[in-house]
């Protein structure tokens, strides 16, 4: 990702952990001190997630005006129905809090898009093919020199992913490896971006090794 400047701030020493803070806010909806902490820690995160969701949904007009309103809606969803959403949070890690806030932010933006689409009677609805084309046209990543992205759809359509999975000697992780292959070549993620997610259980060089191995096998099978 270009122009990286910083990572999200998490807890300072002595502060409550992010999952505990979320749960405490759910239990004490009117505790000003807890909510001040919540706002200090997560407000920027919510703004970022709302902003990214708008961008990914190709909503680019008046973003600076829309984001505060949608962020306010995120807060409303957190507290409505007696804080049901907050109280349903079961996560134990910092990432689980990020994912929780990202889901709510994305859902608010999705509802907003539906709302504006219905207001305009469908005139501004973006066809799914357009979104897919935008995904595919992302600039070529540095660690995928072999492929031209304009030819990707035909190449990937030709590759039988089931066969890729079936012929992978790493039986335990064969499906995960195939998914990483697709995320890299179809969705345009770089190795480092994939490795940042703990669910893949890989380092950047681990992702690169899998991609290199699958590329080699597919080339040999052609």
């Amino acid at each position, binding site marked *: *990702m270009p*122009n*990286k*400047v*910083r*990572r*999200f701030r998490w807890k300072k020493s002595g502060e409550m952990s992010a999952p505990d803070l979320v749960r405490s806010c759910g239990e004490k*909806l*009117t505790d000003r001190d807890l909510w001040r902490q919540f706002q200090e820690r997560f*407000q*920027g995160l919510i*703004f*970022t*997630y709302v*902003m*990214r*969701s708008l961008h*990914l949904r190709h909503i680019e007009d008046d*973003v*600076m005006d829309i*984001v*505060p*309103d949608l*962020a306010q809606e995120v807060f*409303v969803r957190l*507290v*409505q129905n*007696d804080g049901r959403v907050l109280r349903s949070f079961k*996560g134990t*890690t910092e*990432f*689980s809090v*990020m*994912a*929780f806030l*990202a*889901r709510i*932010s*994305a*859902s608010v933006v999705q509802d907003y898009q539906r709302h504006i689409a219905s207001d305009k009677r469908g005139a501004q609805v973006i066809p799914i093919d357009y*979104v*897919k084309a935008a995904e595919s046209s992302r600039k070529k990543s540095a660690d995928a020199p072999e492929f031209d992205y304009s030819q990707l759809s035909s190449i990937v*359509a030709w590759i039988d*992913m*089931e066969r890729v999975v079936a012929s992978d000697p790493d039986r335990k992780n064969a*499906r995960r490896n*195939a*998914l990483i292959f*697709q*995320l890299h070549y*179809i*969705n345009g993620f770089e190795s480092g*971006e*994939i490795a*940042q*997610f*703990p*669910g*893949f*259980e890989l380092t950047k060089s681990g992702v690169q090794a899998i991609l290199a191995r699958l590329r080699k096998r597919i080339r040999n099978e052609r």
Partner: protein
Amino acid sequence: MSDRDHGQCLTDETLTEYLEGGLEPAVKAASEVHLISCDECRNQLAFFMRVLQPDVTLEEANSVKAIAAQWGKKTDNRAMPQRKLMFPRLLVALASVAAVLVISVMLVWIVRERAAEPKSASEVVQLLLTQNRPFESRMAGEPHRPIIRTRGSESPGVSYSLLAGEMTRLSANSHEMGRFYLLQKDFGRAIPYLEIAEREVGAGAAVHNDLGVAYLESGNAAQLEKAGSEFLHALQEDKSFAAAAFNLALFYERTNAGAQAEAQWKRYLELDANSDWATEAWGRLQGLSH
């Protein structure tokens, strides 16, 4: 690939738990089977991977800073820090006199130019209530207006989206925000705010009454019973609270408790025999008697 039969699609929660590494091994394996054959779910997974990228770009950081400043201006313009100046006392005194004169002139101007504008969030709500009666039941402090059936909630000439910004600027509390959304019939937003207000220390009859109105008018059968409890709670707080007495009678009418409704309208008329609300109550009582 996407047109194959690949089972049920994954929820957003499953997708983010996959990224977190929090799924049970069997669920994780099944999710991967689905993800490599369902383009839609994989694209949604990619969506969350982009939203959740831990690195913030310079452009994003600047945007967030600007948005936070905008948000802060709206919500926190009360606590402006005061600078400590080290001027000699005489200078301070002269400056004070000058400041008093300037402020006086400004106040005269503000009073003259802006006398009609609401100065607090509760005044905004009150002003809106004088222009529009949103429903049959009665919010706390609501002046009487005849019921006009309309489809939408927006009054002609009222921009609620602009007023929402004004409510934030005026530091509206939970009760005021709840009332603001309630008179727009935006129950999804009104009820959470009013429920928060109800739990705050010192929540009075007005809060219970307005929460009852929100439950009653929301059209949600599950919340109808809660409306009755809130009106009773309001009357426990203040037995002469006319709006709650009015609404309780209306609640009995809507729940087909005819005898209780009739008795409650009579109790209401003991509290208020002369206002326009009383005239409406008389009409309803007569309607029940015939």
